[in-house]
């Protein structure tokens, strides 16, 4: 009994000191260290970073399909604005941006700039850092700890293997937390695009 009480008191003291060691944290959560650690130690659920982005179909074509959640996307090289994302069939694409966490609708008018599309339906949330879930491609299964990148299927993730000869194929988006068979959704991963 004494042992348990001692452990409990020590645990409380350690937690208390940790709060004190990061003054201001409780007033300003999310700032600075939220990405990797708080309280001077590792955290169980690291903070996540999201960006509001604009979605356009690949190549700005007339494709009008909605992009489903958990799709891995790249920064759009046609728009060149840092707020527009699209899908890719390059594995692993160097322009990888992150994972869509809210279904993205296609634009009402193709060819608009981000400014022209402000307030329109094709805006969504892109996760760029932290624990997430992704759709795994239909060609390869993945193993926990494998690096993650885009695949040859739009919106689906695959194992990332760096290319020594093609600079457009070097986009490492993070790593897989789960081992998964091919063509599965909800596969846990850790994003490191920011």
């Amino acid at each position, binding site marked *: 009994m004494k042992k348990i009480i001692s452990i409990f008191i020590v645990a409380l003291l350690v937690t208390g000191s940790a709060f004190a060691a990061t003054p201001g944290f409780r007033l300003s959560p999310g700032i600075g260290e939220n990405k990797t650690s*708080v309280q001077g130690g590792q955290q169980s659920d690291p903070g996540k970073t999201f960006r509001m982005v604009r979605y356009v179909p690949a190549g700005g074509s007339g494709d009008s399909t909605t992009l489903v959640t958990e799709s891995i996307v790249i920064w759009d090289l046609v728009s060149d604005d840092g707020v527009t994302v699209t899908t890719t069939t390059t594995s692993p694409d160097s322009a990888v941006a992150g994972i869509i966490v809210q279904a993205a609708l296609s634009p009402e008018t193709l060819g608009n700039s981000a400014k022209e599309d402000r307030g329109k339906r094709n805006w969504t949330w892109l996760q760029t850092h932290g624990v997430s879930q992704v759709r795994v491609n239909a060609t390869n299964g993945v193993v926990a700890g494998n690096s993650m990148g885009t695949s040859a299927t739009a919106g689906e993730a695959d194992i990332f293997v760096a290319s020594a000869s093609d600079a457009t194929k070097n986009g490492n988006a993070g790593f897989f937390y789960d081992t998964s068979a091919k063509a599965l959704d909800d596969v846990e991963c850790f994003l490191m695009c920011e």
Partner: protein
Amino acid sequence: MSEKKNKRLRKRVKDIMEKNGMNKNTFKFRMKVAKRVFKMGAITVCLVCIALPCLADKLIVPFDCYPKEIQSGFAEAGMKLDLSGNDRTRESWGFIVNEGSQFVIYTYKNATPEDFKIIMDIIQGSA
């Protein structure tokens, strides 16, 4: 523990057992259960203490903004958005930082899909 103290403790235990009509085995069993409950409680408290501050998210929006307008949009949706982390109260949901061409919302706990929808509506509505 000294012999004297030990004797006194045994006597006290015996008294408690007699008072509650327990035999040795029942007393041992109850002590075991109490220990386990206490242990589980202690572990739960420790885990909650560690997990509570780990749920903050950062939401970056690539537009300029009028923080007070965003704040009132949140208020209409029933969420309290502070203009600084130092304004935090128990009802606060998060706070906004204006960075000129973009603004950042820091949440005090994990943002849910419903939160994302609400924020998107507020931001798109203010366009």
